């Protein structure tokens, strides 16, 4: 498996890179959204899959990136790519502000704080109308840039996945996994758990920040309810869990399968789709807490680096 994987990936990457030359507008925008979900699920995996600190508010970074980029493009006239990168930086700053106090604590406090963070941000954005447009939202100047955004999204998805690979195969990754396994034991071994949790958290915020900016640019219009929805956090969690949290390819697999499924079902049965999502959460938690890849790893004795 390890032998054909790199070659297969390379072929896939080349095909994806060539796709915009042949694809339809709809196809390109669909793929771009798939890349977005891969980046989101994979970023969530960095903090929650690797350290076990579950973030219930990861969409806050997405929204932060969207508004940062939106304001920079809309009012200051920044080039969109630069504005999206600034969105990633601002998401990291936000992660530092919330992670610094919350990650010093062990246990579920972080999860709850993250849930609150998202709600608080949404209210703040709605309140400061002068800067954000408030509940009326923020319109960006018209721009047809689906193809460049396709590549940018793809690059973020690829980078976050590559980053996950580097982390999982490094000592840094081992430290994160000891925190997930047992934080007290990790500390007793002399691991400064707060510092490593914070590093992982900062890294997990960048991707959603950039992707949020790109999504804002792609859609051309953002409003508080469209960039801070709880369902986005839930979707990235479900994708990562379904594919296999804490693995390298699990979140990618989960995003591809569930996004495809969603596209097929969504168009026809809007409510059924949410019902099925709920059913998937319950099934995964009860029957295969390690996700698809986790089950395969166990069954075929695959290495952790898959």
């Amino acid at each position: 498996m390890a032998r054909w994987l790199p070659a297969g990936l390379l072929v896939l990457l080349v095909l994806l890179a060539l796709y915009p030359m042949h694809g339809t507008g709809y196809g390109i925008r669909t793929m771009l959204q798939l890349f977005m979900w891969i980046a989101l699920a994979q970023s969530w995996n960095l903090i929650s899959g690797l350290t076990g600190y579950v973030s219930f508010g990861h969409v806050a970074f997405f929204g932060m990136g969207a508004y940062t980029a939106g304001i920079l493009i809309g009012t200051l006239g920044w080039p969109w790519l630069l504005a999206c990168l600034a969105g990633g930086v601002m998401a990291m700053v936000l992660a530092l502000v919330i992670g610094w106090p919350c990650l010093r604590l062990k246990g579920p406090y972080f999860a709850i704080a993250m849930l609150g963070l998202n709600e608080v941000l949404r209210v703040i954005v709605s309140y400061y109308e002068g800067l954000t447009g408030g509940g009326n939202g923020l319109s960006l100047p018209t721009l047809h840039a689906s193809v460049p955004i396709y590549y940018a999204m793809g690059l973020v998805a690829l980078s976050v996945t590559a980053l996950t690979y580097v982390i999982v195969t490094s000592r840094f990754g081992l430290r994160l996994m000891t925190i997930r396994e047992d934080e007290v034991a990790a500390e007793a071994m002399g691991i400064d758990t707060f510092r490593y949790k914070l590093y992982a958290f900062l890294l997990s915020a960048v991707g959603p920040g950039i992707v949020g900016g790109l999504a804002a640019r792609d859609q051309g219009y953002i409003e508080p309810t469209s960039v801070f929805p709880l369902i986005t956090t839930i979707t990235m969690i479900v994708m990562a869990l379904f594919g296999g949290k804490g693995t390298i390819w699990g979140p990618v697999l989960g995003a591809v399968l569930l996004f495809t499924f969603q596209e097929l079902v969504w168009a026809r049965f809007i409510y059924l789709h949410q019902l099925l999502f709920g059913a998937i959460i319950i099934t995964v938690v009860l029957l295969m807490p390690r996700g698809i890849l986790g089950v395969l790893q166990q069954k075929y004795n695959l290495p952790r680096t898959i």
Partner: protein
Amino acid sequence: MTPTLLRAEGLTAGYGKMPILHDVTLEVRVGEMVSVIGPNGAGKSTAFKTMVGFVHATSGRVVFDGQDITGLRPDQVLPRGLAYVPQGRIVFPEMTVLENLEMGAYIERDGARIRESLERVYALFPVLSQRMGQKAGTLSGGEQQMLAIGRALMTHPELILLDEPSLGLSPKFVSLIFDTLAEMKRAGYTLMVVEQNAAKALAVADRAYVLELGRNRFEGTGAALLADPDVKRLYLGG
């Protein structure tokens, strides 16, 4: 007499504003096995946590291997050759026995030294080598405690601090753990052990301290304390 390896002198420490330790002094010499006993709430575990840096001392100092380590964080103290096995036989449950041990050596970069450490741990705990590929969470309580100790040994520590290694184990495993401690001492390790099981802890110790309400109450050789009528009456239930 062998040189002093660790000396905690006049430690006063606690959680928040509530002091637990009052002017506690503990010492261990190279090659010694020292027990720290005392009733619940005597400050035994707090004394260990303060020495390793999880709790900050408001006064007093800790000298390890000639260096003042007072006020350092655990991640600065532990790589200096101090190993700490916390209470409650804590292992990484989803990792195999071998992975747990390898994690113990995470600061070590030299593969040969890691293999050598593994050999020593397996020699001390043969059961761990039989369970190498098994998930740590599926081991029995006593085996998990052996694994927790083994993991601490992977860094070539000069001193091992064990907090209540026999806590919550069945009588059979309690004896086994104390045999293990004696075995470790014979193998040349320097040990300091906090224990509730006072009689057994005194029996295996070269020297021991009795703490009560956060203060030094008695100290002496294990045998002398075991025979001391006051210690006997107060702590050994006889």
